[in-house]
């Protein structure tokens, strides 16, 4: 299944950095997302776009994950030649990630 089947996301920019926050529709799937959507998998998913490190922040009070992708925007909104210099599409692009279905473990 795809991440989009159980979660939603929003992305934004600051300079050359993109953040993507991800939330499950069902709070009970938070731990499953923590196990499935690691910083390493996000880095791999965006390997053609992101040159810097990917950091994951866990926010259990919101049942949310926040990914920070550095050197991700070809220099940032004012310098990038890309068609999406704000990185607004990153959130939806992350929802394309293939994940395991939540099972008995959730």
């Amino acid at each position, binding site marked *: 299944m795809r991440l*989009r*089947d159980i979660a*939603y*996301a*929003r992305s*934004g*920019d*600051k*300079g*050359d*950095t993109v*953040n993507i*926050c991800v*939330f499950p529709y069902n709070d009970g799937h938070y731990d499953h997302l923590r196990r499935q959507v690691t910083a390493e998998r996000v880095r791999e*998913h*965006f390997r*053609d*776009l992101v040159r810097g490190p990917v*950091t994951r*922040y866990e*926010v259990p*009070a*919101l049942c*949310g994950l*926040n990914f*920070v992708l550095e050197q991700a925007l070809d*220099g*940032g*909104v*004012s*310098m990038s*030649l*890309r*068609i*999406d210099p704000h990185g*607004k*599409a990153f959130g*939806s*692009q*992350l929802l*394309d*990630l*293939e994940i395991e279905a939540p099972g008995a473990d959730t």
Partner: protein
Amino acid sequence: MSAATPRLRIAAGSAYAGDDLRRARVAAESGVDVMCFDRLAERTLAMAHARQVSAGRGQDEEIDEILAVSEAVLRRGGRVIGNFGAANVAAGLSDTVAALRAMGLAGTTVGAIHGDDVTDLARRSDWELPEFGGTTADLGDRLVAAHAYIGADLILSALHAGAQVVIGGRLADPSLFVAPICAALDWALDDWDRVATATCVGHLLECGAHVTGGNFVDPPVRTLPDPHRLGVPIAEVYDDGVIVTKPAGTGGGVTVGTVKTQLLYEIHDPSSYVTPDVVADFSTIRVEPAGPDRVRVGPAKGKARPDQLKVLVGVNLGWRVVAEISFGGLGCVDRARLAEDIVRRQLADGAVPVDRLRADLIGVDSLGRVGGGPNDRPPAEPREVRLRVAAICPQRDAAREVARAVDYLYLGPAGAGGAVSRVEPAIGVTPAYVDRTVVPTDVEVIKA
């Protein structure tokens, strides 16, 4: 929430220059006490500065409209606060005064925050540019502008001096909200937890319809009613909490989902969100439903504000060109790739000076290839594709040559159509961090 009546009702009138101000009028007429207008993004201010240099008009171009949609608030004695001074606060102040007089509101007290424009100081200083490399002094005449983010303290001074309208340049987005919240609830600016909660309100509202259904719906999995007429957000602030809502009868929605996605929008470490006013911790905030289109938020935790202010430095990079042309039918991707090759060869043969150039096929991979896991299917071949060529060139003539090379593709591979191009100054924006004591700020309060 103990009190039935909020201590303050505050709305976001706009999230950027170009936002739909008609939505703000609906909020103003719904009885809010304060309207805040964020009009600046990282790039907007550098563009305003370029306008200031070329035509002496660096202030916001819609000040009369901002005040017109806020009229109901002003006539009730409420307040309007915004960074619509942009790159010329003095001219923005005189536009504000003129607009108020034209509305029959002569005598209104107006506050102006001066000092965010540190362009001259930056030219004389050796401020490090950690993302761009080097220092401001190294830039020489490529340094177009430098603006420091100004916090709530100066806005609060203007409010305490009786200002009903407060205008500034690079006033920090959340600070526009922090000052009137602290003024209305008598919260001290060094009560870091409360300033963090006010900052949370500002952060949630500063992007306008982002928290009421904008940048959110994704049919069929995630929908909200009437996204064609979203409401602007309103925060009801109580002594012991905050409710985010929107005007009755507007479209979209305020849900736990819209609030959570906005709470972490453009945030890095959620436990350490740095503004000129506070280092806010959003990681322990509670977000709970409180009725239809009503969400309870907060409180946040805070630590002392930073000693440094962020400065955005505008750098002249030359000229930017974007040019596009379409191909359709079977084989369109191969023809578009050939077209890209033709453009690159023509520019090389003509020795056109180009600093950076990229070409993308819109509809194929222009947003970048992502995924590629074992379960990903190769996409079906599209039946239409648009070639987009973007470049930064040292001179305007070179940028125009790039646009022409794309236009010539009408005589390139078969069936090219719909060429458009745009050539504009390329102004890059990059941060510096300076001690707040070097930024020479000043508050001016006058009667319209």
